[in-house]
């Protein structure tokens, strides 16, 4: 049995590396995307999520000055403000746990205790902005906050302004422990995208084309079992996934200095992706019998998933309904898990995403296996 599975893996692998287009789509295309997105990196134009904690209270009510500042931010029209309770002692973790299920950006602005009294006393105040540098919109967002803060300061009523506007400074604090850039955010997404496309298209092409060429029919007349065939395909996908991971991470490190942590969760996610995406491909190949139509169906599945599951940009910039749809996309959990494990060093979230991805993998590979016709009927 081992020799048969090895033969299937080796046959797939030889077919893969002897095809220039396979090499392009698996290796060169993701690298090209990294270079392009890394170089171009445009800014977004939608409303940004922003968590605000106003700790400047008098008798449990925000002071007029602090409330005015929050209103000034709101009036820019650039933000969807989400208030963090003033009594929350660990607002950063509050934001992290609240933002993820809602697909919101992890950004927090804290108006400190004594904001108003400091302004009156010293004409100075500090606002803290916790922001993730991987956030595609971070530059635009900071610009708007700085502009809104200056505008607020110059429009304060006398005696605070306008003769000598107070100095309100916005101090930037990294929301995550490491300094994350867009390219750090992007590279795990490209790995996820590559696992998706090689897995789904690999299974669709292998099962569709091999069926058309009667190779599967021929194999079904030998002692090879369906489960051995599937294990061979999954083994091959694991090798491809490992190659993609290593090449992309190496490239990211060499060109952009991206450093990643490879741990047990990454291994788990590679295993999950090697089962999950071929499983989806097998389900597709079962419903769409002709190789060409199956290819089109694979495109129809992979492209929306690629764009909605946070491969190229954070999901929070998506419209609300799209955010909901993204929660049902398996790639979402692979992308998030890879980011948590490789870049953010968030083991708890990596574990949660790995477990979800493994669960989905089990479901899809089982469904694909059950649906796959080994005999002709």
């Amino acid at each position, binding site marked *: 049995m081992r020799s048969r599975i090895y033969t299937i893996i080796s*046959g797939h692998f030889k*077919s893969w590396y002897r095809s220039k287009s396979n090499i392009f789509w698996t290796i060169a295309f993701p690298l090209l995307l990294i270079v392009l997105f890394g170089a171009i990196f445009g800014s977004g134009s939608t409303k940004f999520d922003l968590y605000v904690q106003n700790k400047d209270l008098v008798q449990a009510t925000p002071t007029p000055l602090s409330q005015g500042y929050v209103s000034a931010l709101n009036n820019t029209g650039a933000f969807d403000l989400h208030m963090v309770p003033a009594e929350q002692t660990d607002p950063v973790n509050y934001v992290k746990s609240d933002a993820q299920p809602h697909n919101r950006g992890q950004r927090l602005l804290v108006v400190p205790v004594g904001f108003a009294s400091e302004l009156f006393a010293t004409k100075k105040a500090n606002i803290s902005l916790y922001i993730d540098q991987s956030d595609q919109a971070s530059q635009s967002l900071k610009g708007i906050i700085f502009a809104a803060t200056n505008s607020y300061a110059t429009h304060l009523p006398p005696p605070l302004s306008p003769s000598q506007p107070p100095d309100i400074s916005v101090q930037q604090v990294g929301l995550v422990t490491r300094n994350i850039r867009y390219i750090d955010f992007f590279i795990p997404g490209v790995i996820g995208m590559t696992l998706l496309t090689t897995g789904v298209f690999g299974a669709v092409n292998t099962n569709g084309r091999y069926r058309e060429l009667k190779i599967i029919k021929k194999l079904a*007349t030998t002692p090879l079992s369906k489960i051995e065939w599937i294990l061979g395909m999954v083994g091959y996908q694991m090798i491809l996934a490992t190659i993609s991971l290593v090449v992309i991470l190496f490239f990211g490190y060499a060109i952009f200095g991206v450093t990643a942590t490879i741990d047990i969760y990454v291994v788990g996610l590679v295993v999950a992706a090697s089962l999950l995406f071929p499983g989806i491909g097998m389900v597709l190949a079962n419903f769409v019998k002709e190789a060409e139509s199956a290819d089109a169906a694979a495109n129809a599945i992979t492209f929306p998933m690629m764009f909605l599951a946070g491969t190229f940009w954070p999901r929070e910039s998506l419209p609300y309904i799209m955010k909901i749809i993204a929660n049902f996309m398996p790639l979402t959990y692979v992308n998030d898990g890879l980011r948590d494990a490789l870049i953010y060093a968030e083991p708890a979230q990596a574990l949660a995403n790995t477990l979800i991805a493994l669960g989905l993998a089990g479901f899809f590979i089982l469904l694909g296996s059950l649906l796959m016709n080994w005999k002709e009927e």
Partner: protein
Amino acid sequence: MSDNPPASLPGQSDRVVQVDKLSKKYGDNIAVNDISFNLTKGEVFAFLGPNGAGKTTTVEILECLRNPTGGQAWVLGYDVSKRSDQAEIRKRIGVLPQDFNAIDRLTVRENINYFGAMFKHQLDADKLIELVDLKDKRDEQFKKLSGGLKQRVGLAVSLVNDPDVVFLDEPTTGLDPRARRDVWGVIERLKSQGKTVFLTTHYMDEAEYLADIVSIIDHGQIIASGTPDQLIDNHGGKKTLIIRDAGEEGLKQLPPGLPKADLRNAGDIAIPLHNGELTNILMSLGQTPLRDKEIEVRRPTLDDVFLNLTGRRVSEEGN
């Protein structure tokens, strides 16, 4: 299902294939209708018929790819309907599916080894390459081969486990005449090695040339079986005297008293021959301008057998 037991225990008989009242239905469509036949060790058996006659369905039942809806069949004494027997059958048969292609980017040798690895024991790839005469192409990728060479790779792949019986489903369909002859050469080599071959084809000349036994199937039913000679003798009709390229004019020049002549394609005149008539007809033709034409005596073929049995001919495409 029939309760008839196999004629012998697995592996202990010369009966390689036994088919008893086999049927296969797809909804209301009857693909195979109550057919019975046997295949003996060392024979080349041709299952002959047009497209859609039920050949591939039958052969795929014998290959354990489809389940019959009626009757029974045994391959090498194993019941094709029993799961436990199917595993034994798969170890012992060689299969070349219709329209089979090997893996594009593997070489000839790699393909043979790929499919060989599916079996516990496999024949040496180089020997098989020699058998199908592909020594010069052994390291060529499959996709770069011509249609005829690809089919020879398919034949080598079907023999990789040294099978007791080889099922070749339409092995020459779509090939040019020369490539077909090359494939015939390989099948003849198998025959000379004593291999049992189950061949499906819609080419009458192929069945006539290669087969020891021919069963003709049409609309899911076997309509005649026997050696090619027996089929021709029993159903082929009479020999025909052909006068080449004589045309309408030639018909008018025929001497009186001859059997009724037909004008065929390309202007050939065909005169059915009854026993002992040849000399008389030739002598009377010698008195006419037709004596300068090319004249031949044509023996009936399986084409004529099929025409006589069904009232129609099978086209080159198998329809």
